[in-house]
């Protein structure tokens, strides 16, 4: 069964870049460019991975994350959430987020190939 990935990323150039690479690698890929839309989508389908940017329109990534992992009505624990951002946060904020997610990656530091190998390791 193909694994499903939801990518919440407002930069189309980057989102479509991951789409191209991950679809080629055999994943089902859905791209949302807005925090609210991404959040809605996360509840309509069960995804294996959610790639979440932090700087997003309408709803920031950390807000999306707190809804996804809230005590009430959280998404499946089997869904792995990966923060994929270029934003350099201060360490306490980053550490707080890292505890809630399966990986925290800097987009500029990884290539699509690297992302695929990380996803394979996480499955």
């Amino acid at each position, binding site marked *: 069964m193909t694994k499903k990935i939801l990518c919440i990323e407002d930069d189309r*150039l980057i989102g479509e*870049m991951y789409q191209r*690479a991950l679809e080629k690698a055999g994943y089902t890929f859905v791209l949302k460019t807005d925090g609210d839309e991404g959040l809605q989508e996360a509840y309509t389908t069960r995804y294996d991975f959610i790639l979440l940017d932090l700087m997003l329109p309408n709803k920031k990534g950390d807000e999306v994350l707190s809804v996804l992992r809230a005590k009430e009505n959280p998404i499946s624990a089997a869904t792995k959430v990966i923060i994929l951002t*270029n*934003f*350099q946060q201060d360490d*306490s904020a980053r*550490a707080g987020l890292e505890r809630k997610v399966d990986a925290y990656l800097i987009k*500029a*530091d990884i290539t699509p190939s690297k992302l695929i190998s990380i996803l394979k390791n996480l499955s």
Partner: protein
Amino acid sequence: MAIGGKRKKLIQTPESKIQGYWGEFSSRAVNLFVAGQLFVALTAAGFMILAKDAQTVFVGIVVIIVLELLVQALVICLVLQPQKRLIKFISHLVAGKDAMAEIPRHRWDEHSGLTAIASYIQSINSASTAATLASAAENVNEQADNYVVNALNITDVGIVMLDKQRRVIYRNTAAPIRNGFNNEQALDLLFNERDSVSDWVERTSKNVIKATKVWQRIPNLPDDSEERERRYYDVIANYAQGEEAEIVLAIIDRTPQYGRDEDDLNLIAFAAHELRGPVTVIRGYLDILINDMGKDITPDTKQLFDRLSVSANRLSSYISNILNTSRYDQRHLNTNLEEQTLSAIFHSIIDDVTLRASSQGRLLSIHVPDDLPAVAADISGMGEVFTNLIDNAIKYSREGGSIEVNAWAHDNYVVVDIIDHGIGMPANVVSNLFRKFYRSHRSRGSAIGTGIGLYVSKAIVEQHGGELSVRSQEGEGSTFTVTLPTYVSIKDKLLNGTAQNSAAMSENTPRIQNHGMLK
């Protein structure tokens, strides 16, 4: 006997004198009176016997009357006059005049003990004056207390006192306090995990009864409900076991200083965010293009792609270096130390550094045994360090030159050498090498660099409790050596939580947050 008597007199206190005074005085008065009357009566009797005519009787009566008057005068002088002087003395005292001038000093007064009584009353009076003065002084103290309380509320330094149960028993106006659970007052400060005031007291109170600690750059608690200003404080804590206020905190608002740093940092963080976007796209599409072309790619095109990739990767490293330098300079560079193997760290960078070396015609060989003891490391931080050092070796070696990376274990450390056989450097360059923005003589011509790679690498290594050093021979090449403590040797410190974040900031090296604890 005489000496003994004198001594007895000397040790007589005013109290004993006043207690024995009435007995002495009354018997003296009675004796004087009786003796006087007896003398007058005997004189009268003598005249009666000797009197032969009316003239003698008359003379006798006159003599007796005169004698009687003399006796009366003596009684007045010796019994009544002292009372008069005493009353005069007391009335002076009561009127608040200088009673010392009126102390009875007649020699008979001395004799009768009246002087002693007067001194005694005088001393009682002085004591009560002293008491009055003392109570006045107390008023002054009370006033001083008021001054202190007022001053504490005027000052910008927050003062908080906590009792044994860590309850707030005093806070001045400037103290950042909020109402916590059950409306109890709590510090409005966001300490790092396991490094709060009570954690510290918990630890120190087991070993010492007095201690001081300073925390720097402690922000106030974030508030979800309203947008409120982030403030930054330095906190000085004094702990004194057994005192009513066991913990006294001085909290200094340093927002103007730290807040400015924060603005700078935010600017750099946003700039980096913007720069990283295009870098992500360039690296990502290069990666996709190379994969898409697969075997169709000609060696010539491959070389072009590799050069593009290397440049994009370098750009990404430089952005990280700039960010880390800025974070380090502002004490924000924290490391997340975890049990890691060196092979895992090198595995995370090997593709990148191999490509960097090969595309620039260097032979890179990495010998990192899998069975080396684990180290406590932040994988991305140490990855950056080794990338920087290999990049540096590439820059300062010649085309076709070889670069070796060798790692081995030594006592409680794991040592990594990065060796190049390049142009090397003279001693004066070596001593400046780890300075920020230092670019050696050799880099001015050909190689490119920001001059912060080595500076930030050293900072990161030191945050790991390790060392970065260099040996170099001009014309023969350089060897950079990274020494990291093994995970086992510092495990306890890590698990105690003391190596987390800025626990060590004030206790040891202020510049490097984790490093101090690991020494």
